């Protein structure tokens, strides 16, 4: 630590004041308030006049059929998206990890949907998934028709709506995870792969026994981040299906949003948000632990 850094310490408060004040007002304070409200019967219009109700909001959450459905849907969505997106991103990264400039273009193509705003993509895929109607059908049905697949109702079919949204979400997000894997791939020692090749390991064996183990931290990172992003799903079902048909795509965030603005039960909405925070926080904590083990 240099002398001038100590001498300048007095001006630190002016450098920190704007950021810390904003974080305190717009992040910490709302969080504390949500924590307090989650134990009260606060409602949307006059949260100040709330009375304490103990753990009622938390126990009530699970009894609330709509919330339970949203909770299960969100888990289901994560289970559909996370393995598919991780595995696909991994192999796409291997596929485009070549030096020739042409592969840069392909990398750009895979990354393109990441750059487009989610509401735009949600609207676009609603049109792509259009069911067949009087001789007309959406491009997805038309394309599958080429291979003899009969037209489906996709977003209007309770059994297909969530998987259809999951497919679209993987398509949108896989480019980002591919980039993360690509960065991780650069740190796999080339000599190790070369040595395995000389020892007669096939392409598949080299990936499984050399690349995967040396990318353990990257894989853990991608899985947990994808999982957290999956839990935060909201825009796609909100715009594409409004949570339907028959609540089959109702997301956690949408249920919290509705608790706040539709049923105006602020206390319960805050309890739901806190439960969500515990879920995401737990995942982040688990990620840290696993990754640390590797470093030691």
């Amino acid at each position: 630590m240099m002398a001038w850094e100590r001498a300048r310490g007095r001006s630190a408060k002016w450098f920190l004041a704007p950021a810390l004040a904003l974080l305190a007002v717009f992040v910490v304070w709302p969080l504390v308030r949500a924590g307090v409200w989650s134990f009260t019967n606060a409602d949307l219009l006059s949260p100040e006049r709330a009375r304490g109700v103990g753990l009622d909001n938390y126990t009530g959450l699970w009894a609330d059929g709509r919330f339970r459905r949203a909770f299960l849907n969100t888990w289901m969505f994560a289970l559909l998206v996370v393995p598919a997106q991780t595995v696909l991103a991994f192999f796409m990264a291997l596929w485009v990890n070549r030096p020739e400039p042409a592969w840069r273009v392909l990398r750009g193509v895979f990354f393109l949907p990441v750059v487009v705003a989610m509401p735009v993509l949600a609207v676009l895929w609603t049109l792509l998934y259009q069911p067949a109607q009087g001789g007309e059908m959406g491009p997805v049905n038309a394309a599958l028709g080429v291979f003899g697949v009969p037209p489906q109702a996709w977003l209007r079919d309770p059994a297909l709506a969530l998987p259809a949204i999951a497919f679209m979400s993987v398509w949108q997000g896989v480019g980002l995870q591919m980039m993360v894997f690509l960065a991780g791939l650069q740190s796999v020692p080339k000599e190790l792969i070369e040595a395995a090749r000389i020892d007669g390991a096939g392409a598949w064996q080299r990936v499984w026994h050399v690349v995967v183990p040396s990318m353990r931290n990257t894989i853990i990172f991608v899985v947990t981040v994808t999982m957290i992003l999956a839990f935060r799903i909201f825009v796609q079902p909100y715009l594409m299906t409004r949570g339907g048909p028959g609540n089959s795509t109702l997301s956690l965030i949408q249920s919290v949003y509705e608790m706040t603005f539709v049923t105006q039960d602020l206390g319960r909405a805050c309890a739901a948000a806190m439960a969500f925070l515990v879920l995401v926080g737990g995942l982040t904590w688990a990620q840290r632990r696993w990754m640390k083990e590797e470093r030691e």
Partner: protein
Amino acid sequence: MKRAEATGGRSASKLAAYGTWVVSAIVAVVFLGPLLWMVAASLREEASIFGGGWLRADGWTLENYAEAWRRAGLGRALVNSALQVLVIAGGGLMINAMAAYAFARLEFRGREAVFAGVVILIVLPVEVLAVPMFFTARDLGLTGGYGAAMAGLTVPFLAKAFNIYFLRQHFLSVPRALEEAAVIDGAGTWRLFWNVALPSMKPALATVVVLDLLAHWGDFLWPLMIATREETRTVQLSLANLFTQPPVQWGDILACAVMATLPVMLFFRWFQRYVVATDARAGIK
């Protein structure tokens, strides 16, 4: 690993190279197809979007764009969105870089503890905070009229824990010798920060700006709660409105979707060169 050389023999390797190209082309179509369809369909007459006949010369039109512009109030919405992301990215950059500099270079009591507190905030998803944040914004008068709503869209997102963390790492890697030379010349703390440290980490600054712009251009939940009046709508809200309000015109919706995408694409194309290969954490919004 799947390089063509791995397989022996010239003709075999040529075949493998063709195979690689074919697979690549098919996958590229899957990723590019929907976006190309969006652009092409936005130029089709309403009745022929889902019908066939795309290969014929007729049925192409720019009418959808004129209609979308008028019905969705796109001019106003684009200005609002641009204002929103520029204020967040620009103002946020200043505020976060200042804090990051203090954490990296200025010594004060409790620095490590305060920094640890900021790092914890990184994992908080906006969605968890949206509801209580809405009340804070309301209490501070950041809802309602145009100015208030625009402030409500931006001010809560100026300070960002991840950006502070990210920029601090980059300030730490700026050579101290640069600043020491300026100290000998009698430079004050502000000049060390503004004239010496900041200019030497432009790629990191560009990265933070791009991430902020991409993330907030697509904002939906927060504007949905804050920008409730027609004149305060952002592009995404205009699109959603066109999408849900009858009469539903596919052509208008598609034209609006293209218009909501073009600015960010152009920006990304232009800004890409300034961006460093961001560290992996950048994946978290």
